[in-house]
């Protein structure tokens, strides 16, 4: 369990984290989502006692991080896979970490096997690829068999195989009853990994809900409908007070209509009342990305200089993953 209350971090005039309050519960993967520069890493560093909050508190299992004895046995965290000495072997790196927290040395070999690094355990960490470094960081996080796990952008720079591996790994950890907090700027990734989402933008809390709720509430739900009597249908829907538009896709071969903010039930009822034949009636959810953009659009920290290019810049800021 991680409890963050009124957490604020001020760098000069800029508030990197602004009065954040949320709770991360055990047993599920909680996604910590926000555009780059939203304050995710700063929040995680404050939870780990690395940065001092300007105000507010972050508690892990009811206590501030710096008051935990042998903290690696309570919290495992991977904030940056490159926080190792490049000339020290992977094994020696884990050995000093184990020794510092009273973890038996035998556990080092266990976690190396767990993340698949046994073969290269004696190699210097500086020569590792990003994927291997991430695995080493993961091994360090798991060393103390902690109840609480935190990962900052764990899939950044990984190949698809590595991404799937990490995703399954985190879900397994949560299924074991642990508290798992994973940050990402990729909503699509979080949708596959997390059950619960904490979304922030410019250091402020935007949303704290299940992934499903986030999508339902944030995205527009519209209805797509096809009919041989398209004109009659259009006037029927319009007179019912609905906003109707043509489908946006240019390669649309069959004529169709999209009714905004409506349900299939409502459209079906209207069509029946006017005795209009329908060939298709389907509800359309906005994509997760659309939902995310809609919520955080105003909260992206680094817009391009040209205001008219905002939409494009926002997409770029999200790492291009939204396309």
């Amino acid at each position, binding site marked *: 369990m991680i409890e963050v209350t009124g957490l604020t971090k001020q760098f000069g005039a800029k508030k990197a984290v602004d009065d954040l309050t949320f709770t991360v519960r055990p047993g599920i993967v909680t996604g910590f989502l926000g555009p780059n520069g939203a304050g995710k890493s700063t929040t995680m560093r404050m939870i780990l006692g690395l940065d001092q909050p300007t105000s507010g508190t972050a508690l892990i299992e009811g206590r501030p991080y710096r008051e935990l004895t042998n903290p690696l046995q309570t919290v495992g965290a991977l904030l940056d896979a490159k926080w190792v000495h490049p000339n*020290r072997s992977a094994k020696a790196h884990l050995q000093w970490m184990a020794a510092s927290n009273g973890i038996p040395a035998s556990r080092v070999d266990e976690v190396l096997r767990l993340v698949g690094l046994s073969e290269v355990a004696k190699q210097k960490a500086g020569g590792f690829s990003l994927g291997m470094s991430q695995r080493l960081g993961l091994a360090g996080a798991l060393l103390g068999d902690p109840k609480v796990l935190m990962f900052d952008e764990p899939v950044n720079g990984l190949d698809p195989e590595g991404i799937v591996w990490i995703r399954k790994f985190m879900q397994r950890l949560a299924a074991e009853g642990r508290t798992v907090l994973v940050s990402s700027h990729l909503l699509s990734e979080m949708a596959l990994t997390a059950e619960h989402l904490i979304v922030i933008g410019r250091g402020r809390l935007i949303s704290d809900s299940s992934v499903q709720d986030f999508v339902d509430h944030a995205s527009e739900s519209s209805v797509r409908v096809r009919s041989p009597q398209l004109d009659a249908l259009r006037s029927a829907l319009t007179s019912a007070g609905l906003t109707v538009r043509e489908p946006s896709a240019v390669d649309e071969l069959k004529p169709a209509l999209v009714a905004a903010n409506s349900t299939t039930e409502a459209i079906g009822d209207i069509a029946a009342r006017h005795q209009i034949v329908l060939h298709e009636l389907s509800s359309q959810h906005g994509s997760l990305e659309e939902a995310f953009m809609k919520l955080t659009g105003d909260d992206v920290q680094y817009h391009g200089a040209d205001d008219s290019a905002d939409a494009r810049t926002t997409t770029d800021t999200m790492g291009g993953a939204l396309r």
Partner: protein
Amino acid sequence: MSVLAAERIKLTTTKSPWWCTVAIVVLGLGIAAILGISARSAYGSYENALASGNPPDFEPFLPTVADSVTGVSGFGVLVLMIMAALAITSEYRFGLIRTTFQAIPSRASVLVTKSLLIGVVGAALSFVLALGGFYVAKAMAGPDAGQAMVLEGGDAWRSIYSIPIYAFLCVFLAVGVGALLRQSAAAVALLLLWPLLVESLFNLFGSIGRDIMPFLPFTNANNFLGAPGGVDFHWGPWVSLLYFAAFVAIVFGASIVVVNKRDA
């Protein structure tokens, strides 16, 4: 104890501390050997000049116990300080310090344990090397040129046992400076230039400089080591040691306060 175990593993699992140790041994014994050899050859030419009937107008150089260990007290301890400073600045450089503080949230205990470990190892090493350097220099100099190198009396012995005490304090100073500056180059430059250059610059400032000299930390350390260097001290070698220790304590204490306050 767990922090000590962790720091011991850290110290022994990268190569640079081993290379620094090799450098300290080579400097400590090598300079002693060179000093002995050159003292012997200088004494030889002095004797030759006497024998050939034209007495030289100089006295032969007869190195003392303090002279025989300058390789350790001067150069060896400087390398030890570099090693101690790098032990902390390299953690900052690679971001490893955050992993360290994540594992050991008590930052003071990290700095103190690191210093204690390197300090005790460095003190033991420098004591052995001081004794070794003395015997190497004496053996190389031979009985005539080495006649002043006798381990007798308080001052002669202090030249030996002052070195581990000095080395121990220097390690705390180096870790403190390293933690304050966080940059290897800056910390090493400061730690080398300060004793080697900055304090001797005061010689150039005339009478004011000479008045300030007895209050400079490394000048006091040298007084304790038995090499007062012509400075007119207001106190004896043991007060000089206390003076240097107090200076180290202030720098090290400041580093703990700053590191505790600062975001890692």
